[in-house]
């Protein structure tokens, strides 16, 4: 079975590396982007659509909300998105939902939390 493909969108290299190590360790294929614009380019250029998006909010040039809104307006196969942020206020969750996210997690994320949410969204069950 081909591995599920996840796009990790975050401007911090270490955060991308951390999420990559967790996700690859669990058998996923990981691609990266540093902001919303690059994420959209990679999405459009990909040979097949991604299965899941992991999207940071605060990024230069285009933030996570902007990317999700653009993504959801594209005429392509859509996929679930987990929005990630350092903030924990309720209005951010609402905003994330409105932009088209399925889950909202606050950093730093523990490996089992990340995997549980990803697997749930990919229809693989919730156990880590």
């Amino acid at each position, binding site marked *: 079975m081909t591995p599920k493909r996840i796009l990790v969108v975050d401007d*911090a290299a270490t955060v991308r590396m951390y999420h990559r190590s967790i996700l690859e360790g669990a058998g996923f294929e990981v691609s990266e982007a540093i902001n919303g614009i690059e994420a959209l380019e990679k999405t459009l250029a990909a040979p097949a659509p991604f299965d899941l998006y992991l999207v940071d909010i605060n990024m230069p*040039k285009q933030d996570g909300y902007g990317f999700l809104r653009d993504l959801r307006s594209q005429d392509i196969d859509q996929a679930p998105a987990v929005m990630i942020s350092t903030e924990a206020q309720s*209005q951010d969750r609402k905003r994330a939902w409105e932009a088209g996210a399925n889950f909202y997690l606050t950093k*730093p994320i523990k490996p089992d939390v990340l995997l549980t949410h990803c697997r749930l969204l990919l229809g693989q069950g919730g156990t880590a």
Partner: protein
Amino acid sequence: MAIVKRKQTQAVDTDERSRPRDMDGLIGEMADSNPVARRWAARDLAVFPDAAAALVARLGKEADATVREAILISLTVIGNRAAVDGLVECLRSEDAALRNEAIEAMKNLPDAVAPIMAGLLADPDHDVRIFAVNILESLRHPDVEQWLIEVISEDEHINVCATAVDLLGEVGTTAAEHALEALKARFPNEPYILFSADLALKRIRED
């Protein structure tokens, strides 16, 4: 029909500018209903250092991305204390795009930002402290590593520390070793902190 050549590129005599191009006229133009006019006004204001406050004020209300871009570029070109003070206030905005734009602009203003950096790193709002560390990423200043070491040694908020460790992975030297080890001891149950601190230490020690 084919590839043709004109004699001269048409010079533009009139463009989308209506009011006088002095500072007050341009500031007035920033409230025009036409975004093209606002954009030109924002660009032309780049030569008026005293316009910084007006540019920042407009930035907070401006919905058009192209006008915002022009305002940000002008603020970067002006780059004085008033510009930076205004950008700092943008860090506190609810608007994620505005916050990130302000961070980016400040990254390009090392001279104006350096004197206030210590204050930003001590701001009561942990998000502002995170953004301050983000700004350090492109700040060309000799104290950058020392500031980062202070953050990971003293800041209580995990995400402020996490942002600082990420940058130490790139700019850290042996001076940061002790503080990185201490950080790991402070957050022993946080996999991300252990991961990023170990990465920074590995890079420092490989030399």
